C-alpha cells in the first residue's frame, strides 16, 4: 500500500488533508482530471511529492534507490502532462534537474568534467529528503507534547505580572513591526487616493474652457456652461473656482468677454473679439465682488 509507513500530521493540521488519502483516491479514480488537480495541490511542492514517492520504496531513506525515485517522479509528471494538468513551474524545474541527475548517474564520468558527480547529486537529494522527513517527524512530536492551555494550565486567577523595572510599558517587537507595517501600508494607499482627489487645476479649467470656446457666440452663464462637468456635487466648488480664475486669465488675453449684472448674479461669458486687447470694464466689477 502506498505510504503505509507515512504518518500524516493529522494532529493539528485541520486544513491539510492527509496526502496519501488523496493519492489513493487518485488511484481509485484512475485518470479523473479534477481528481489529479487536487492531488497536485495536496503536495507541498516537488520535494514533498518526492518524499512521498520515496516512502513507497519502504526502505530507510538513506538506502532508497535514487534512480528508481527519479523514474517515479518523471512518470508522475508525464502522467500529469498527458491529462493536461497545469503543473507549477517548480515541479518542472525539479523534473529537469532529476532528468539531469539521471543522466549523470547513467553516463560514465567525463575526464574534463569537474561538476558534481551523479552520486554526489543523489546524496544531496537523499539528504534533503531525509532532512525534510526529520523535520516533519519533529513537528509531529512537538505538536503532540503536553501543551499549555490544553494539557497543563497556568494560574487561573493571576494576581500580578512581574516585569523588569525599566519599562512601565509593554510591547513586543511584533507589535512594533506590525504597527509600522500597517501604518506605512495604509498611508501608501491613501496617499494614492489623495493624489487622485478631484481638484480642478487652473490648467484643467483653462483647457476645458478652450475646448468649449466654439460654442459661446452668445452670452452664456458660467454655471450653465460647466453643467456637464458638475455631475459630482463635491466637485462644484473646485470646478467653479478654477473655471472662474481661468476665465479671468483668458479675458485678460482677450479670448473671452465676461460680465455680471450685480453681486451674486450669474456670470456671463462669450467669445472675445481678438482685436480688443484689454477687454471690457466688467472685469473690474467682477473683481470687486469676489
Amino acid at each position, binding site marked *: 500500500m502506498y505510504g503505509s509507513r507515512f504518518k500524516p500530521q493529522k494532529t493539528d493540521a485541520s486544513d491539510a488533508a492527509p496526502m496519501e488519502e488523496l493519492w489513493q483516491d487518485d488511484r481509485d479514480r484512475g485518470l479523473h482530471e479534477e481528481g489529479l488537480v487536487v492531488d497536485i495541490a495536496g503536495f507541498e511542492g516537488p520535494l514533498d511529492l518526492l518524499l512521498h514517492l520515496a516512502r513507497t520504496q519502504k526502505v530507510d531513506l538513506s538506502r532508497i534507490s535514487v534512480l528508481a525515485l527519479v523514474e517515479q517522479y518523471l512518470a508522475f509528471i508525464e502522467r500529469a502532462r498527458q491529462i493536461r494538468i497545469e503543473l507549477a513551474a517548480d515541479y518542472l524545474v525539479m523534473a529537469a534537474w532529476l532528468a539531469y541527475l539521471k543522466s549523470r548517474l547513467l553516463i560514465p564520468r567525463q575526464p574534463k568534467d569537474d561538476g558534481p558527480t551523479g552520486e554526489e547529486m543523489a546524496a544531496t537529494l537523499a539528504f534533503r529528503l531525509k532532512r525534510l522527513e526529520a523535520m516533519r517527524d519533529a513537528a509531529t512530536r512537538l505538536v503532540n507534547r503536553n501543551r499549555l492551555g490544553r494539557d497543563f494550565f497556568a494560574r487561573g*486567577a493571576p494576581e500580578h505580572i512581574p516585569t523588569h523595572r525599566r*519599562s512601565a510599558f509593554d*510591547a513586543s*517587537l511584533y507589535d512594533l*513591526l506590525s*504597527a509600522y507595517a500597517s501604518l506605512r501600508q495604509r498611508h501608501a494607499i491613501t496617499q494614492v487616493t489623495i493624489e487622485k482627489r478631484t481638484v480642478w487645476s487652473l490648467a484643467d479649467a483653462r483647457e476645458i474652457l478652450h475646448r468649449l470656446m466654439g460654442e459661446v457666440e452668445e452670452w452664456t452663464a458660467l454655471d450653465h456652461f460647466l453643467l456637464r462637468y458638475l455631475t459630482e456635487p463635491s466637485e462644484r466648488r473646485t470646478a467653479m473656482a478654477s473655471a472662474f480664475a481661468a476665465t479671468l486669465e483668458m479675458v485678460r488675453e482677450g479670448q473671452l468677454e465676461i460680465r455680471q449684472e450685480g453681486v451674486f448674479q450669474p456670470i456671463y461669458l462669450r467669445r472675445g473679439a481678438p482685436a480688443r486687447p484689454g477687454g471690457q470694464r466688467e472685469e473690474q466689477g467682477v473683481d470687486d465682488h469676489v
Partner: protein
Amino acid sequence: MSEVDGPQDDAAGGADAASEAATVVDPRRLHEAARIAEALVFASAGPVPEAYIADRLPAGVDVGHVMRQLKALYAGRGVNLVQVADHWAFRTAPDLSFVVRSDEGEVRKLSRAALEVLSIIAYHQPVTRAEIEDIRGVQTSKGTLDVLLEAGWVRFRGRRRTPGRPVTFGTTKDFLDHFGLEELRDLPGLEELKGAGLLSGRIPSNFQIPLPIGEEELADDEDPITQMDLEELGLLTPGGKEDE
C-alpha cells in the same frame, strides 16, 4: 512525593482526621485526590465550589477531608488555600502581600498611536516631529511622545540644521534591549516584512523602508543637543527654578 500524605495526621485537628480516616480506602487514592483538587483550584479563574471538586475526585474519597488536609498543608506556605463560603481558592499568604503587590505599578500596553510613533522613530531616525506627523498623516499629541520618552525608549538626538532647527528624535539602548535587538540594523527591511506577511503585496513600487542609521553618530545635517537647547525646550527643569 508524600507531602500530602505525610502531614495527614496533624492536619486540621486530630479528631477530624481520625474519624475520616475510616472512610478512606487507600492512601494512594487520597494522594491522587489531593493532586486533583490542587490542580482544579489552581487553574480556576475564581473560587471553586466544593461540589465541583467532589464530582471530579475518585469515588469514595471525602472531599471535605481532602480539602482540610490541603489547607493544613499550605498553612505555613507562601500561598494559602482558603475557604470562601463553600468555595476554595488559593491566595497569597497575607504577610507576603507586600512582595506580590507590584511596587512598580501596573504595566500598561503601549497605545496604537505610541507604537506607530515609536516605530517611525526607530526606522526613520533621526526624525523630527513634523516628519513623524507627515508619515503618520495625523498630528501627534504631546502625550504620545512623552510616554515614549518616559518609557526610556526614545530620546532627543540633536537638532536638524534647517530653518527652525527642529529637534530630532532617536531610539535608546533600552529600546534595543526591550525589543531584543542587537543593533538598529537588525530591524527587518521591506523584503523581510513582506516575507513575514506583515506587509501585503499591495504596495506601490516606489515604496521604501529606510535602513536606520547607527544610534550614536549624528547625521550630516544634525547638531548635537546642548544643555541650552534642552532648557529652551523646557525639558530640563532640574536646572531651572520652576520646579521648586
